[in-house]
């Protein structure tokens, strides 16, 4: 039985591992214990960026023009709704549907592809958690304390205590 258990446990290691690393920079504005707006900037790792920039920057002018940005939005950013934009907003232990992102912009900065977008949602920060991670384990979301900017409250960044994938948690104090 022990052998079979060991063998079955080995199946655990079939899950994929991340090949893309995204640094997340959230800027959160809070008024009266409620969020007014959350701005996100995602910075993709340089290697993945080079692959994507080659595809997105069709006229190769080193920046993403309006039509190129529309392509990114429709083909690469919007489909991430299926993954909740790698961000779970949990309020009172219930994961909320990720609000529709606004002000999407994609740009190149220091050879890295960046996405910026906002969510304009009023969320009571009491018992609210923001978890960043990819359940498919193909993307690693990186959140460091110094990446976070909160106006009107304090935040704590910790490792996501999850048995299945790599991630970080942001909670409010």
């Amino acid at each position, binding site marked *: 039985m*022990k*052998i*079979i258990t*060991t*063998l*079955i446990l*080995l*199946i*655990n*290691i*079939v*899950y*994929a*591992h*991340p*090949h893309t*690393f995204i640094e997340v920079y959230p800027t959160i504005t809070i008024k009266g214990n409620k969020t007014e707006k959350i701005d996100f900037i995602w910075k993709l*790792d*340089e*290697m*993945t960026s*080079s*692959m*994507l920039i*080659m*595809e997105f920057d069709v006229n190769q002018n080193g920046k993403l023009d309006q039509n190129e940005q529309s392509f990114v939005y429709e083909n690469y950013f919007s489909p991430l709704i299926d993954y909740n934009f790698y961000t779970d907003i949990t309020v009172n232990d219930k994961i909320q549907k990720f609000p529709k992102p606004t002000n999407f912009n994609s740009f190149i900065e220091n*050879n890295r592809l960046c996405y910026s977008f906002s969510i304009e949602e009023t969320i009571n920060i009491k018992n609210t958690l923001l978890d960043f991670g990819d359940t498919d*384990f193909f993307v*690693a979301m*990186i959140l460091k304390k110094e990446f976070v900017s909160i106006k009107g409250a304090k935040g704590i960044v910790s*490792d996501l205590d*999850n*048995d299945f994938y*790599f991630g970080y948690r942001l909670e409010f104090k």
Partner: protein
Amino acid sequence: MIEWYNQLLKQIIIYQYQLNSYISSTIRSLNDDNMYETSLLILGVAFLYGLIHAAGPGHGKALVALYFTSNKSHYRKAFKMGYMISITHAFSALIFTFGIFYILKTMFRRNFNELSNIAMQISAFMIICVGLYLIYEAYKNKYNKELKIKKTNKSEYAVAFSAGVVPCPGVMTIVLFCIMLKQYFLGVLAAITMSLGMGLTISVAGILSILLNKKTSHKLDSKAYILEITGGILILILGIFLFTSVGYK
């Protein structure tokens, strides 16, 4: 135990994130003055990156672990298989990268995802075949030890090829990055050194599985074929799991 495993995985990912960033900035800093020393440094880091990259979860190690846990083998076979898988994995990545870059030219990421899915399906199908073959052989040869030795050579190549045929996205990314910076030769060398690192990690997974087999199989004695059949069934399940998960995507 699970907590420890998760912490290990987390640490592996953090190291990969740091190495990935270090390699890209170092490749970008290459110039005529620092060409040799920086190239050597990149290759050394690529080896380390491969070593750590392969330490993360993956179907190759699952297959190797299941195979060696359920089949008696020598330690050198683990090295042979580890390196057969990693070299196939890296060469597949090189062919895919140069192929997509120079033949398809555009939509690298999309073509890469589509072709990777096809390769993964082929790999999953082959893993299913390997599982079925191992079950059949274990059942057929349960009393015949000589035939069993002949079987393992054939099945080892099948295991190595089925696991390695999927191109390694990690290798592809480094190679493409080098191509874009017109460092073609360095890209190929980085792919090779990265595969050497991956091979070492996969070999260690194989050695640990052989150790497990040695500890457990003598208890089964003449009923060792039960372990082989169980291994074959689990490999079959692994193949079906991979096949359906790729199809689902």
